[in-house]
C-alpha cells in the first residue's frame, strides 16, 4: 500500500496558531473570576519548580521510584523532618536514595530577557478595557497593571544515592530535558523558563565513613512577580442610559397640597386629542380627577390602573380643557407625614339646606384635599375657608339641596 498522494487538509501543527494561540495563552492566565491575571509571587514560582521536578525527574532504582521530597526544604527542622519521614529508617534518618529540592534563600534581580528593559517608578500600563453595565449606566473600566518584576531564583536539585547507575539515570533525564539548556514550567498559566546552570558533585570522599553520592544540579528559574495588590481599576467613559417619559401636554403643572405628605396636584391642558395623561410617577392613591374643575367618575369617565402613572379618559377632553389629577405618591393607606404623625383620609358629604354656609366635620381637619359642590371642585381660600378645626365655611351660596363633598386629612 502506497502513501496517500493528496496533501489537502493535512494539519501539521495540531494546536492553535497565531492570534488563536495568543488568546489561548491569555485565557490560561485569567482562569480566575476576574479579567486580571492572578498574582504570581515567590511561593507560586517555588511550587512551579517543585511540580516541574516531580513531573520530569522520576528515576527508578531497584524496582521502585526514587522518592522526591515533596516540599522545598527550608531551615525549619520540623518542616524538614515531616517531609522525610515517609522514607526514614529506624533512626529517623532519610533512607537512600532520594531527591531533594532546595531553594537558595536569596532571590536575585531577574535576567529574563523579556523583562530586561524596565521602566522606572513602577508605572501602570493598560492591560484591558472591560465593559460595564449596572442596569442604568453603561461604560468601561480601564484595568492597569505595572510591569512584572523580573527575578531569578536558584534551586539546587540534589540526588543522594549509593549507586552509580542511579546517578547516570538522573543525569540522563536532566540533560535530555535540558538539551537546549532550558525548559519551561507553568505557573498559573504563565510559561516560566528554567535554565540549567551547573552540575557539581559533592560526594564526600572519606575512607572511614559511610559511602554515598551527592550530586547537585543547579537551576535558575527566570521568573517574574505579578502582585494583584498593585493592580488599578479605573472607570473610563461612562454613558448614562436615560429614559424620559414625555407628557404630551405643553402646559403641565404640578404643585403640592401639603408638602409634608407630598399630596400632589398635576394640571394638564388638553389638546382635544389626547386621552392618556401621565403624572410621570407612580400614583399610590388617586384622590380625584377633574376636567375644568368637574370631578370625573372612575371607570365611567376614565380608567386608572392602580400604582401606575397614567389616567386614560374614555373620550379625549376638549381642547384647552384643564385636567387636574390629585394623588398621593406613597404606596400605603396609612399616611405618615415628615414629622412622624399618622394621618388619615376621610370623605364626608353634606347637603346645603339654605340655613348655614358652615359645615362641621367629624374629625379635626389637618388639610383639605378637595371640596366639590355637585362635582365642581372649589378652591380653598377663594371658594371656602377652614374656619376652625372642624368647620368649613363656604364663601359663595350654592343652590339649596346641592351636595357638598369634602375629602380631608385628619
Amino acid at each position, binding site marked *: 500500500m502506497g502513501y496517500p498522494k493528496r496533501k489537502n487538509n493535512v494539519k501539521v501543527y495540531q494546536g492553535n496558531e497565531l492570534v488563536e494561540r495568543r488568546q489561548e495563552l491569555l485565557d490560561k492566565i485569567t482562569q480566575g473570576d476576574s479579567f486580571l491575571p492572578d498574582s504570581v509571587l515567590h511561593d507560586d514560582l517555588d511550587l512551579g519548580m517543585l511540580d516541574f521536578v516531580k513531573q520530569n525527574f522520576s528515576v527508578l532504582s*531497584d524496582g521502585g521510584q526514587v522518592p522526591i*521530597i515533596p516540599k522545598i*526544604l*527550608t*531551615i525549619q*527542622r520540623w518542616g*524538614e523532618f515531616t517531609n*522525610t519521614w515517609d522514607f526514614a*529508617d*529506624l*533512626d*529517623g*534518618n*532519610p*533512607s*537512600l*536514595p*532520594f531527591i*531533594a529540592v*532546595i531553594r537558595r534563600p536569596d532571590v536575585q534581580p531577574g535576567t529574563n530577557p523579556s523583562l530586561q528593559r524596565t521602566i522606572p517608578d513602577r508605572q501602570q500600563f493598560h492591560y484591558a478595557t472591560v465593559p460595564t453595565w449596572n442596569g442604568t449606566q453603561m461604560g468601561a473600566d480601564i484595568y492597569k497593571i505595572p510591569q512584572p518584576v523580573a527575578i531569578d531564583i536558584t534551586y*539546587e536539585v*540534589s540526588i*543522594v544515592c*549509593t*549507586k*552509580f*547507575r542511579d546517578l547516570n539515570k538522573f543525569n540522563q533525564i536532566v540533560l535530555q530535558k535540558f538539551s537546549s539548556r532550558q525548559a519551561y514550567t507553568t505557573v498559573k498559566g504563565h510559561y516560566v523558563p528554567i535554565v540549567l546552570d551547573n552540575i557539581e558533585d*559533592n560526594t564526600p570522599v572519606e*575512607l*572511614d*565513613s*559511610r*559511602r*554515598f553520592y*551527592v550530586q*547537585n544540579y543547579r537551576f535558575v528559574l527566570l521568573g517574574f512577580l505579578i502582585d494583584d495588590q498593585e493592580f488599578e481599576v479605573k472607570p473610563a467613559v461612562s454613558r448614562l442610559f436615560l429614559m424620559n417619559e414625555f407628557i404630551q401636554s405643553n402646559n403641565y403643572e404640578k404643585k403640592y397640597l401639603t408638602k409634608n405628605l407630598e399630596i400632589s396636584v398635576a394640571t394638564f391642558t388638553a389638546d382635544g386629542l389626547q386621552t392618556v395623561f401621565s403624572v410621570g410617577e407612580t400614583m399610590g392613591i388617586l384622590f380625584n380627577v377633574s376636567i375644568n374643575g368637574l370631578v370625573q367618575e372612575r371607570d365611567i369617565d376614565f380608567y386608572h390602573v392602580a400604582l401606575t402613572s397614567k389616567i386614560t379618559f374614555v373620550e379625549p377632553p376638549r381642547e384647552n380643557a384643564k385636567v387636574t389629577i390629585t394623588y398621593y405618591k406613597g404606596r400605603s393607606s396609612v399616611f405618615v407625614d415628615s414629622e412622624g404623625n399618622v394621618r388619615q383620609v376621610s370623605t364626608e358629604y353634606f347637603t346645603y339646606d339654605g340655613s348655614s354656609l358652615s359645615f362641621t366635620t367629624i374629625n379635626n381637619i389637618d388639610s383639605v384635599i378637595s371640596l366639590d359642590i355637585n362635582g365642581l371642585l372649589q378652591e380653598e381660600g377663594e371658594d371656602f375657608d377652614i374656619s376652625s378645626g372642624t368647620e368649613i365655611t363656604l364663601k359663595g351660596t350654592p343652590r339649596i339641596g346641592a351636595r357638598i363633598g369634602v375629602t380631608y386629612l385628619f
Partner: protein
Amino acid sequence: MYMSKKLPITRLSKFFSNEDFDFNLQLGKEYLHGDLNMTLVLYRVDTESTDTDAVYAEVGKDQIKFFPPIEFNALVKIEQPKNSSYKNGTVRYLEPGNLTLSVYIDHLQDLGIDIRYGDFIGYPETEDKIRYYTVSNDGRVTSDNTHNMFGFKPYYRTITCVPAQEAEFRGV
C-alpha cells in the same frame, strides 16, 4: 610474602618465648571471651556467587550473597554518633559512630574465618535491635608495634567498620 617453610621466632628469647606469648594470649582470650563475652555476627560476602553490575561492579538492594553468618568475639568500641546533613544543613541525619573491633588473630584462625574489607558485621545493641556495619578497614596489616606483643609477634587486628544503611544491608 608468605614462606613455604616456617621460620622460628627467636627474638627476645632471653625474656619472652612462644610459651609466654601463648600464655598471655590465653589470659587475654579468657578475659575477652569469658568475662566480657562481647559477641558479634560476621556476614561474609560471597563474592563469587554475588551478581554484580557488569560495568560498575555494584549490587542492588538484597542482591549480595553471603556465607552462613558466624558469631565471634571482639573488643568493641563504638564512636559517638555524628550529626550531619546531606545538603548545606538540610536533609539532616544522625550518623551512627564507627565501630572499631579488636579481635585476636588466633580466634579468627580457630573459627577458620577471615574478616575482609566489605564484609558486614552485626552488633546487637539491645535484645531487639541489631545494628549493621560494613568493614571499611579490615586491619589485615599488623606489622606495627601496637599489634605486636612486646615486639614478639602480632596477636590481634583492629578492624574499623562504618554503619551500613538499609539500602546496603538489612540482615540475612
